[in-house]
Every structure is written in C-alpha cells, then in structure tokens.
C-alpha cells in the first residue's frame, strides 16, 4: 500500500476550531463595540473626553503606587497581601494628623520665619510624605515580622487568611474612638489648590469663577501626583535594577533556597520588600487624600482592590506591568463612570480583568508560570 505523504485536507470548521476563532470573534466584537461607543460619545464632546482622560491619569498614578506594593510582595513571597490597602489608609491618616494637629507641612517657615513661603511649602509637603512613607514602612515590617514570618513554611492559605486578619485588625482598630474614629474626616491639604483651564492656551482659573464651557481643567494636584509618582517609580526602578539590595530581591523572588545558599539574608530582603512597598502605599495615601480630601477608616479597601486588579492586569510580579495596568485601570474607571454607568465601574474593572486574563492568563507583562519540580 502506498503511504500518503500529504496532510489530510483541513476543513473550514476545523480551521475555525484550531484557530480558536469563535472566542476571538466574541472578544473582538465586545471590544469593538465598546471602543465605537466611547469614540461616538467622545466625538460629541471632545473636551469632556479629555477631561476624563486627565482625571483617569491622576487616578492611575495613585493606583500605580499602591499596585507596586502588591506586585513586589507577590513577586517575592507569592502572598496576596490584603492588608496593603489598609497600610495605604494608615498613610493617609498619618499625614492628616501631621498636617492638622502638628502643622508639619509648615515647619520650615515656623523654624525660619523669613524663608520663601513656596520653598517652605515644598519642603513641608515632602516631609509630610516622607513621614507617611516611614510610618507605613515601619508598620509593614512589623506586620511582616509578627504575622507573616512565622507562617512562611505553612501552606500559603494560612498566610492569606492571616493577611485578611491583619486587614480587619487595621480597619477596626483604626475605627476605635481613640484611634482614627469611625467618622469621615475632611482632609486638610498641605497646599492650596490652583486650577488652570485649557482653551486656546493655558489660563489660570480664579477661585469662585466658572470655567468656560468646552475647556479642559487641570490642577496643581495632578501635576504634583504625576511628578511624585514618576520620581518614586524611577527611584524604585533604580533600587531594583542597580543596587545590591535590588539584586538580592530579584534573586530571592527567583529562587529562595538558592539565594540563601548564595549568602543572601532572605528574611531581611523580604522585610525590605515589604517596607518599600508599604512606603509607596503611604505616599499614595497622602496623594490620594490630597486629591479626594476625605479620610475614613475603610478608605483603603476600594483603592487597594483596584490597585490589586491593576497589578494582576499588568502581570503580577512585574514593575512596569503595575504601572501600565494602573494607568489602564484609572482610564477604565473614569471612562466607564463617564460613559457607561457610574455604579457599575467596579464591575467593569473586574470584567476587563477577567477578559484580559482569558487572553493572557498571567497578565499583560506577566511571565508564563514556571514549572517547579
């Protein structure tokens, strides 16, 4: 008998099935529908659309700072640190008390009265942020030492449950009347808000004056958030890529036992990771409270969750992924609030996450899961 050398003919249906075209077609249809819908709405009023983009940018950078903590901790100990959002809350409260009770944002002018007020404000604001970062870093290291370290060899679920417990503890301990109280507190900004509008050039918007219709507003808060976030991101990238600690962190995240054999203090590096992540969350807490001036003991839950989603979306464990995921999340949130439905924006964020995970199971920048022997 003669052996046929040609492959059997592939039918049209088989091609559809092998190419996974039905699922791809569905996803493409959804995304095209949404894009066309938003583009149509945007063409009706471009100013509103750009306004939304700017709001989304502001939100996205704050999320990025929180998401980095999730992504670093997950990358190094494979723990979803649910207490991270509450560390962010503590950062916001610390800065609130520092500003409202101790006037920390004005200390340079209190020490040297003849100093330039602008320089005083800049130094004061930076010291408020540093205080929040330091407190959060210290808090996170304490949490790590007390709650997570004893469970390092236990099943991962134990550490996860402990993380949830710590999250509860921070929230409800903060809600006690002598700690943060369970009330909404109006946040006192360290600096005054100045707003500009863009319409044939950039103009300053006087207080109490309506912006002309069809203009795009932005404030100094946006600029400050972007500058501080980019500075922190750059320094984080520097720490992780260029310093010995960063090298050790990468080694520990890659393979813990081998890193230990190479003489790396694994526990110390894990603590440092927690501290850096929490410090970023503390800075995010200050910036978030400045942008949306209200603090309450459960304020960390929603931003924490969004940032976590952003970290997963970008590929958990990846630092650029966290930034990209957060920017996407910020835009998705404001666009869905602006054009689809405000109450549905959390659901839309998660729908995007699930759809992205279906196409790329480890997120946009995620590496495929390594098989461990």
């Amino acid at each position, binding site marked *: 008998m003669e052996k046929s050398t040609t492959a059997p003919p592939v039918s049209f249906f088989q091609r559809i099935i092998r190419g996974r075209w*039905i699922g791809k077609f569905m996803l493409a249809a959804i995304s095209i529908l949404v894009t066309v819908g938003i583009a149509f709405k945007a063409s009706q009023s471009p100013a509103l659309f750009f306004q939304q983009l700017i709001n989304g940018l502001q939100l996205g950078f704050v999320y990025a700072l929180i998401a980095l903590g999730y992504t670093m901790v997950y990358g190094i100990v494979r723990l*979803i640190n649910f207490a991270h959002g509450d560390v962010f809350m503590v950062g916001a409260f610390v800065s609130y008390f520092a500003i409202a009770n101790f006037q920390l944002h004005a200390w340079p002018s209190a020490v040297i009265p003849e100093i330039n007020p602008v320089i005083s404000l800049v130094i004061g604001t930076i010291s408020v942020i540093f205080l929040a970062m330091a407190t959060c870093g210290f808090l996170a290291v304490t949490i790590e030492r007390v709650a997570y370290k004893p469970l390092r060899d236990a*099943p991962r679920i134990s550490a996860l449950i402990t993380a949830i417990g*710590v999250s*509860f*503890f921070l929230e*409800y301990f903060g809600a006690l009347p002598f700690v943060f109280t369970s009330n909404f507190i109006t946040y006192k900004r360290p600096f005054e808000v100045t707003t500009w509008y863009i319409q044939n050039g950039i103009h300053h918007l006087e207080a109490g004056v309506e912006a002309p219709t069809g203009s795009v507003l932005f404030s100094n808060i946006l600029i400050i958030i972007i500058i501080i976030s980019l500075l922190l991101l750059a320094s984080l990238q520097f720490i992780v890529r260029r310093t010995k600690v960063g090298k050790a962190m990468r080694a520990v995240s890659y393979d813990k036992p081998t890193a230990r054999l190479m003489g790396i203090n694994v526990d110390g590096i894990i603590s440092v990771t927690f501290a850096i992540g929490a410090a970023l969350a503390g800075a995010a807490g200050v910036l978030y409270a400045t942008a949306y001036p209200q603090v309450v003991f459960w304020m960390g839950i929603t931003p924490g969750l969004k940032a976590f*989603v952003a970290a997963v979306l970008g590929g958990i464990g990846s630092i650029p992924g966290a930034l990209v995921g957060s920017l996407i999340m910020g835009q998705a949130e404001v666009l869905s609030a602006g054009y689809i439905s405000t109450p549905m924006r959390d659901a839309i964020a998660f729908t995007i996450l699930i759809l992205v995970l279906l196409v790329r*199971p480890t997120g946009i920048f995620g590496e495929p899961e390594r098989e461990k022997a």
Partner: protein
Amino acid sequence: MNLKANRSTIGFIGVSLLIIVFVQVLISVGVLSAFWATLISIGAVMGIVSLGLNLIYGFNGQFSLGQWGFYAIGAYTAADVTYRWSQEHSASGLVIVSLVVLLVGGSFLLIRYMLSRIRGLDPLSAFSLYLIGVVIAGFLAVKIGQFIINPVTAMFNILPASLAMQIIFFLAVLLAGALAAEVSFIFGMPVLTLGSDYFGIATLGFTIIVKVLLDNSDVLLGFEEMKGARGMVGIPKLTSWLWVSLFLLAVVIVTRNLLHSSNGRAMISVREDEIAAKAMGIDLAQQKTLTFVLGSFFAGLAGALYAHINGFLHPNTFNFIKSFDPMIIIVFGGLGSVTGTVMAAFAWALVLEGVLRLVLPTGFETWRFVVYPVLLLIMMLLRPKGLFGAFEFPFLRQVLPPLRKSQGSAATTPKPTIAEGD
C-alpha cells in the same frame, strides 16, 4: 454490603437526627432564645456554603473566592420567588425561575451533546456558544412563562396557604441552587483554565460583579422588589431550624457519597497532582467543572436558606470582604475535612456573633472585630492544619477501596511453598 460501613451509616444518621430533634425541642421549649436559634441556623447555613467551598478548594484544590457570589445569587433568587408569592400572590417568580433553570439546563445539555463531537474546541469558544444558548433559552423562558403564570398561581391557590408557602419555599431553595449551579457552569468554563491564583482573583471579581449588580438590581436589572442598595424587605421568614438542619444533613451525605465515589477520588487526585491525574486518564476540565458546579449549587442552597432567616437582604451582606468567611471556616475546620467544616461553621457563627457580643463588656462592642483577627492570627500560628486536623467521624472517613481478593492475598499473605504443601 459491608456490615461495618452500614452500622456507621445508621449510627451517623441516627445521631444527626437526634441532635436535630434535640435542638428543635430546646428551641420549642424556649431554652434557646430566638437570638441563639437564629445564630444556630446561620451556623448551619455557613456549614452548607463552606462544605461547597471545601469541595472546590479543600478536595479539588481550586482556590475560589466566588462562593459568596453564588451565595448571593441563591439568596436573591429564592427571596424573589417567595416574595412574589407572599406579597403579590403570584407564582410569576416560581414559574419564570423554574423555566429559566430548565431551559438553560436543557440548552447546556444540547450544546454539550453537539460539542462532544468536536475535538479541541477551546474554552473561550465553547463559552461563547454556551452564552448564545443561555440568551436564547432565557428569552424563550420569559416568553413561555407569561402563558402559564396564571394557571400555576391558580393551582397553588387550591392548596392550604401555609402548605403552598412551604412547597414554594422548598422549590425556591432548590431552584436557587440550580440557578447558581448553572451560572457557575458557564462562568467556570473559561475561568477554570486559569492558574490557581488567577482563578482566585477572577472568582473574587465575580463576587464583586454580583455585588455591584445587586446594588443596582432595581435600576439596571429591572427587579423593582429587590430595591437595590436600599435592601430587600418583606421576604417571608420561612427558614426554621428543621429546614436548615435537614438541608445540611442532605448536603453532608451528598458530599460524603460523592467523595466515596470514583468521581470523588478523581477530584482528590486532581488536587494532589494535575499532571499525574491527567496521565491516569482523568478529564481535568470535567472534574474541575463538576466540583465547581456542585460547590456553587450548595452555595445557592445556603443563600436561599439565609434569605429567609431574617427576611431582609442587603447587598452589603454579599460584600467581597465577607467572601473570605467560608474560606476562613474551611481553613479552621481543616481543608478536606467534612466534620471540621461543619463544626467550624457552627463555632464561627456562635463565637463571632454570639459569644464575643456577650463576653465583651458594654461599650466595647466595636472591639469585636479587633479581637476576631487576633484570634484568627493565634489560630493560624497554633493550629495551621485546622481545629480538628485530620479527625473525621467514621461515617465520613474516606476509606480506600478494598483490594480485590486475588491482589490482596498476593500482596499480603506469602504464598505457601510447594515443599510445605507436599
């Protein structure tokens, strides 16, 4: 039939029934106040949810945080059915929900049969096809339902009012479970292909999506009576200790029998090692889906029972933070332990809501959630394997299948040598 197994079966069911009757007597006599009776019922409800989650996570190793979403679906479905009967005297809820469940289930079977001929269809494509089936079936169910609401209402009106109510309640609970199971089937199909942590995150997302939908159930979904974020009121309080405990007993027995079957062993082998299980010829996707659907069915049942305890439902009950409660319970009880799960569920409900409220002095009620995490932490440090560890009642204990006679004798007893025989 193995006599020993039989004895433990009778013993277990007998003891369970005795306990159920004993608690019922305590409640009827008034030794247990309404407060404690409610707490015990909530404990049983949590037991059912957690048993479902234990199937998914403890026995099959799928880290799911979506249990609470299915619980919510069950609660609101059953509440809507009984609400429409008790407040509006119409069986519309019952008719529509049962038609949706039947037609969607039928469409699933049909599509499954058609897809079984196609090899190598990826989950996302299968999901799209099933989704089309769901939309068509749901549309048909609503259209057909319009015609039979009135006859069914008339039929139930013939029965005595309280009996009709109880029958509708029972059907509502089962339908709620079935609906949750169908939702879990279609949601699980693409999502179960994700890796363990990503599956957890996707299911967490499911819980949040359900919660947000419930927050807007009156505006977006068009269910006026659910009242969205204001909370659904006017649900008849039908869940009694007897209903809950009998459902719990049934769920325990179903779980036990499943775990003792070949499906149960396949399920556990998937948890132990997916690659080895696959090599043994186990269909991973099918096992995972089966477990997920069954676990969600239990969640739906529990939700339906919960809805009728207080007669009030609020979307905040189904917040994602609360979705960790069943997870905490199964870890406390010991992953993969049926006894532990049920015990831990009761202990959780009684301690958290009951004892902590009573123990803490007045003015310190807000400390409840400060004490709880500390207890959690201590527990995790001291008993990481769960309260009961590997303990199981004899009836629930998993026995390895007895070796066959020929194998058994070959493996255990040495063969008599020929020299001795001669």
